[in-house]
């Protein structure tokens, strides 16, 4: 380590500037207490809740400031619609997939007949190592658009009248469960008979 040279006198102007800088930095640090208050409020909202409820709160851009972090447009939209009842697609998908994870057997193979990208992402993660496929053949799924494209050309998948055909095809392909929509609600059914508690 080098030996420090004798300290040079610090000009008075630099000393004043230094104190001004320290005060500004201290104010910056003090301002972060507002951010910490948000953390405390979120912690209080999460505390004591069951896991699925905590996840639903955490995933919702309308209930958790962390879900809006780094997205100024989302933050602005939240401020504009503050107080209005809003439903988060990501939170709904997380909570539903987390609840269904307890229903699925370890070796389940699930066919997703709902082109909902959040459901595909969250279900794939939360149900792993069970498989979740949106098409029976390997196809590139890069984002919501490619997911929609993958099912768009299959008329049976978008026609409620042909739901039985989709069930039979999925069962023939070796899937044990099917995710589909009935009357606007996402439903998980065991191929053969409905899974207990599978409806939302």
């Amino acid at each position: 380590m080098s030996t420090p040279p004798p300290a040079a006198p610090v000009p008075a102007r630099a000393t004043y500037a230094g104190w001004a800088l320290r005060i500004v930095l201290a104010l910056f640090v003090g301002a972060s207490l507002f951010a910490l208050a948000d953390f405390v409020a979120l912690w209080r909202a999460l505390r004591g809740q069951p896991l699925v409820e905590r996840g639903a709160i955490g995933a919702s851009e309308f209930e958790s400031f962390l879900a809006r972090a780094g997205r100024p447009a989302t933050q602005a939209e939240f401020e504009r619609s503050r107080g209005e009842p809003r439903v988060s697609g990501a939170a709904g998908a997380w909570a539903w997939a987390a609840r269904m994870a307890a229903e699925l057997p370890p070796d389940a193979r699930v066919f997703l007949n709902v082109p909902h990208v959040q459901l595909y992402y969250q279900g794939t993660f939360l149900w792993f190592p069970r498989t979740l496929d949106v098409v029976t053949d390997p196809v590139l799924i890069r984002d919501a658009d490619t997911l929609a494209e993958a099912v768009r050309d299959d008329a049976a998948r978008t026609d409620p009248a042909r739901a039985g055909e989709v069930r039979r095809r999925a069962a023939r392909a070796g899937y044990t469960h099917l995710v589909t929509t009935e009357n606007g609600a996402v439903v998980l059914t065991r191929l053969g008979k409905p899974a207990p508690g599978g409806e939302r």
Partner: protein
Amino acid sequence: MIARAFLGLAVVELVGAALLTLLGAELRRWSLAGKAGLSFGLGLVALTSFLFVASLAGATPRAWLGLVELGVLAAAVLVLRRERLTAWRESPGADRSPSRGARVGSAVLLLFVAGTCAIVGATSLAEPLVEWDVLAIWGLKAKVLLASPVRATDYFQDVAHAYSHLDYPLLWPLAMAWTWACSGDTDLLAVKALGPALLCAHVGMCHGLLRRRLDARDALLGTAVLAAVPMLLSQCARMSADAPLALFVLGAFGCAWLWLESGHGDDLRLAGVFAAGMLLTKNEGLALQVVLLACVAAGVALAGRRRSSSALGWLVVAPLLVTGAWFWFRAAVPKVHEDYGARLQPRVFLENVERVPVVLARAPTYLVSFTDWHLFWPLVAAVLVLTARAWVRRTAAFLVASVALVLLLYAYVYVVTPWDPVELMETSACRLLLHVAPLAVLAVAEAARAAGWLRSSDEVCESATW
């Protein structure tokens, strides 16, 4: 389960501490918090690199694997570098006879930093893993790696999972897999123990770097500034991979800069390991490594010292050795997303040059996003402008140039991206800014110190100029 996850993170810390002892001949130059922060970063690189090689050899992450690595490193310390262990008790001393006001101020700052880590940690641990891109990209990979070795799984060839970016590096997923391996289950809460640990590592490493240049009180103030950046707190709490990348950027650029100042081999060796960490965390690490090498090359040239061979060895060869297995494996992974390596060509930039004003016009939205940054970036800009005459011919210019070049590079990427730049900026700009935010704290502190606004530590040699 969470307690066992923290035990796993203690192993990460100890692996890093052993590596720090092997690499650092003069550990007493670092504060205790600095040593702890450096150790966690080094431990992440060493443990996950080892787990990846083990995965290539057919093993999945298990607690015994980490304990074996820890045992080997601890034995190496005891046999080769036993005398360095005493340096763990030594650190830069407290300020000489501080006033009562300074003591109270320091206590308040210390309380603020510790309280911030505790509050963010408690919130992080109360919320399961829910950030959709964290679980879709990094969490899914962690579960895949925990279930089967990399060469036995078809995940890395399955384009139906292309949304999870098959070719993204595996340091963060392996850190998650390690936590799960130690906790005994893929618990959505236990894995969140990584968040507060990472925040503590940020704070510790920042203090260590600042204390090398500033007196104890000002180093603590700088550390508190970093702990007050909302974007860092939120991304650590949500387990975003940008938070560990920011830690490695701070370590790599910060230690490389200290090496330019001190010429001490310890600093260069640490910079090399953290550079490997950048490469193993996100694909942006490649671009960051290029910026690091360019800035170090310029620094060596301007300093007029013959230190290029050691820099080449530790900043190029060492990271290549650490990351070689990953890049070899990655070569066989299908590239089904944006190929930024090819798109960085000037031709692609010129084809999209009309986007430049769009990107420049949008950039301030993210730099002054009060919710995410408070007034962090305007404050950084103001201090750097006001102190420009003091730092421009000193090595602090290395830090300022590094931050500026990384930001310019990211702006360039938004011009050449195949996606809509406005939509992409909305979801990624603040995260990219986070990569250099801790480094910006270091740049501001050094610029203010060079101007005489903040007080130097005893280690600083004022004659170091270009």
